[in-house]
């Protein structure tokens, strides 16, 4: 079976996506969506990305809730900085964080979390030193950001992917 479906979860999600896009579960769309999702998973296999092992689905849900709350809070924080009367962004700066996570999939998810949260942007990760370079809009206390990223995101991501 694995030659036919190298990434079963990816294929399932793609099929679901196809059906949602077309708002239909007619047999025609089921067949077309299945063919497309299987061909797409072959294309993915040709890239040889390495299989992500998702260990703890509950931890993934927990992480999603934490990230949604943080995105909401940083929206308000960044909005306040922008409408602040004098010189917005005066505290912006770069900072580095040493990471313990090695999983490529975990790092990819972390980069999306950090970049899509207003106020922080993932600039670079050095795999040799496992150091992450960030740009933060409100860089007053570095330890707060280190605690947020290591304690709130990295710990859960390591539970999920490692």
């Amino acid at each position, binding site marked *: 079976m694995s030659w036919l479906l190298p990434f079963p979860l990816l294929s399932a999600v793609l099929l679901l996506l196809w059906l*949602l*896009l077309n708002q239909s579960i007619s047999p025609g769309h089921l067949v077309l969506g299945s063919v497309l999702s299987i061909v797409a998973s072959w294309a993915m296999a040709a890239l040889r990305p390495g299989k992500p092992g998702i260990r703890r689905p509950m931890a993934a849900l927990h992480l999603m809730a934490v990230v949604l709350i943080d995105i909401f809070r940083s*929206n308000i924080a*960044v909005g306040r*900085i*922008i409408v602040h009367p004098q010189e917005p962004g005066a505290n912006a700066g770069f900072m580095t964080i040493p990471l313990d996570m090695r999983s490529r999939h975990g790092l990819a998810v972390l980069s999306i979390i950090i970049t899509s949260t207003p106020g922080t942007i993932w*600039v*670079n990760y050095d795999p040799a030193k496992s150091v992450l*370079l960030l*740009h933060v809009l409100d860089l007053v206390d570095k330890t707060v950001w280190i605690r947020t990223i290591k304690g709130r995101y990295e710990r859960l991501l390591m539970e999920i992917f490692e």
Partner: protein
Amino acid sequence: MSTTGELPVWAALLTAFLVLTGAGVTLIGSIGLVRLGSFYARVHAPTLGTTLGMACILMGSALFFSVLEARPVTHEILIAIFVTLTTPVTLLLLVRAALYRDRIAGSTDVPPADAGDGSPPPENG
């Protein structure tokens, strides 16, 4: 697009609130593009529009069409997933390009290449 009835008042009010809130948040993000000083600070501003702004407008849209057509409309969830997955890639590319140029130009405002970057250092002998 088929419609089965009038939009009730509660749905109209809630839709208006969500769309206006989303538009307001996106507007603040756009003002940030003008007000913030450096390129790296400016990159943070549009993320307001791609997170909370987008979420509010999409929730308003989903509510409006779900109530109007009397069936759950789910395209908005897909839009949210696609926007969330694609904007970080664009922002990352922009920031890295800017950092690369600043380092080549020998700017002292950005961290040097050995502070965690795999890109080549400026060639100065």
